[in-house]
C-alpha cells in the first residue's frame, strides 16, 4: 500500500455523552479511493466532520502526511489541503456558478500553475456553460458537479465526499461516479462516504463498513459481485 496521506488513529467523537464514532482507525494512501459505507447513523458523516475540524474529536488523532491536524479550525484544515464535498451539496444558491467555484479558491495553497477554474470546467463542461447563472437554478446533478468542482479548484491533496449521490437520479449518480474515476487519475486521494454500497465497493480500492461508530468489515473491489456479503455486512 502507498504511504498514507490521511490517517485516522483511534478516532472517538461524542455528541454530549453519546458516542458517534468509536475508536475508528483507517488509512488512505496517495491516489487511493477509500469507501466508507454503512447504515444511517453509523457515524460516516461525523467522521468526515471530525477530519475537517467541524466537530471536535474526543480522542484519537487525525493525521495528514503524518502530521496531526486534530484541533485545528476547519478553515485551516481546508487550507492545509483537505477539501470536503458536504452532504446536501451546500452550494450558495444565490451566487453565480462561477462565484461558487471562486469560493473554492479560498482553500487553495498553490498560487501558480493552470487556471484551477478551467480544470473544473474541463471536468464538468456544463458548469462553464452556466457559469453566469445563479447556482440555485441548476439541476440536482449539476449542483453536485458544482459542489465537487468547488472542492477541486482548491487543488486538494485529500478529497472528502459526503454522500455525493444522495437524492440524485440514476443517470446523475453514474455521472458522479464517473467523475470520481477521472479525479482519481489526477492523483487526488479520496475518502468517499456513500449509501450506494455496490457502486462504492466497485469503485474504491477498499471499502470499510461502518456501523454503530465502529469498523465492522473491509471489502475489496472483488466483493462488488458478492451482493450477499455486502448485505450481510450491513445487517451484521
Amino acid at each position, binding site marked *: 500500500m502507498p504511504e498514507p496521506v490521511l490517517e485516522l488513529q483511534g478516532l472517538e467523537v461524542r455528541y454530549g455523552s453519546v458516542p458517534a464514532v468509536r475508536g475508528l482507525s483507517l488509512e488512505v494512501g496517495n491516489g487511493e479511493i477509500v469507501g466508507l459505507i454503512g447504515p444511517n447513523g453509523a457515524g460516516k458523516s461525523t467522521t468526515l466532520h471530525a477530519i*475537517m475540524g*467541524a466537530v471536535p474529536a474526543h480522542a484519537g488523532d487525525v493525521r495528514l502526511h503524518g502530521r496531526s491536524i486534530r484541533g485545528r*479550525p*476547519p*478553515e485551516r484544515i*481546508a*487550507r492545509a489541503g483537505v*477539501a*470536503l464535498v*458536504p452532504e446536501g451539496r*451546500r452550494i*450558495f444558491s*444565490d*451566487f453565480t456558478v462561477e*462565484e461558487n467555484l*471562486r*469560493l*473554492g*479558491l*479560498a*482553500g*487553495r495553497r498553490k498560487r501558480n500553475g493552470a487556471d484551477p477554474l478551467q480544470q473544473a470546467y474541463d471536468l464538468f463542461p456544463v458548469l462553464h456553460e452556466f457559469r453566469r447563472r445563479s447556482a440555485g437554478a441548476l439541476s440536482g446533478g449539476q449542483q453536485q458537479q458544482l459542489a465537487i468542482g*468547488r472542492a477541486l479548484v*482548491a487543488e486538494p491533496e485529500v478529497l472528502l465526499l459526503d454522500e455525493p449521490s444522495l437524492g440524485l437520479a440514476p443517470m446523475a449518480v453514474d455521472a458522479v461516479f464517473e467523475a470520481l474515476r477521472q479525479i482519481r487519475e489526477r492523483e487526488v486521494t479520496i475518502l468517499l462516504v456513500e449509501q450506494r454500497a455496490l457502486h462504492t465497493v466497485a469503485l474504491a480500492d477498499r471499502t470499510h463498513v461502518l456501523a454503530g461508530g465502529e469498523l465492522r468489515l473491509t471489502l475489496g473491489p472483488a466483493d462488488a459481485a458478492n451482493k450477499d456479503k455486502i448485505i450481510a455486512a450491513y445487517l451484521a
Partner: protein
Amino acid sequence: MIVAALDFQTVSDAVATGAVYALMAVGIGLVFGVLRLVNFSYGQLIMAGAYTLAFTSGWPVWASVSTCFAVVIAISLAMELTVFRPLRGQSPAVMLVTTFAIAFLLQAVALIVDLRNDFIGEVATSISALNEAITVGGVEIRKVTIVAIGAAIVALVLLALLLTRTTIGLHTRAAAADFRTARLLGVRVNRVIMFTVVLSGVLAAAVAVILTVQVPLVSPDFALHDTIIVLVGVVVGGLDRLWTATLGGFAIGFASGMINGALPTDNTVYLPSVLFGIVILVLLLRPAGLFSWGRRASAERV
C-alpha cells in the same frame, strides 16, 4: 396639512433622514449577516464619533473628520477583539444583552468625559458650514441634506462594488449566507469578521459626521433614538438580507421624516407612536419583513 407635508423641503429632508438611516441599517446589517449579532451598541459608536468631532472642532475639517473615522473604527475593532470574539458561538440572546452592556458602558464613559466642564453636551462646529441653506429652484435646502443623500449613495455603491467585485467581498457574502460551509471551504472567517467590523465602523463614522451637522449638540444619548428606530426599521425590512435591511432603514427614516412634516409642530411628540403603530401593522401583515418576498422568516439557517 397633507398638502403641506408634500412640499419639496419636507420630502428632501425625509429622503436625507432615510439616507442616513439606510447607512446605519447597512452598518448593523453587515455585522448581523456575518456574526448573527444585533449590535445594539451601534448608536454609541456614532456617539463616540460625534464627541470626537466636538472635541476636535478647532482643528481643520479634514483632520477632525479623519480623527472621527479613526476613533470609531478603533472602538469598533476593540469591541470585536475584546468582547465579540471571546463570546463567539454563544446564543443570540447572550450576544444581544452583551451589546446592551457595551452601549451603557460607552454612554457612561461619554458622560464622565463630557462632565469635565460641569455641564452635559458638547458642540461640534467644525463642519457646521454645511448647515447653510442654498436655494434650488426657489426652494431652500440645507447643504447637509444634499451631502447626506450624496454620501449615502456613494457609500452604498462602493459597498456593493466591494461585496460583489472583490475576493474579501465574496468571502463576506459567503460567510453571511452559510457561515459553516464558508469555513469548510477555507474562508478565513476572522478576517471576514474584521473586514465587516471595519466597514460598519466606517459607516458609523460617516453617519456621525452627517448627524453632527444636523444636530451639533452632542450628548451621551446622541444617536440613541435614531439607533432604536433603525433597529426597528431593519427588522421590519427583513434582517436576513442586507438590501432588505437597508431598504427597511431607508423606509423608516423616510416615513418618520414625512410624518414629522405632516404633524403640526406641537404634535411631533406623537411621532414615535405613529411610527411604531405602523411597524406593528407591518409586522402583523408581513411577519418575515416588508421586503422579503417569497421567503419565510429566518429561512434555511442550519
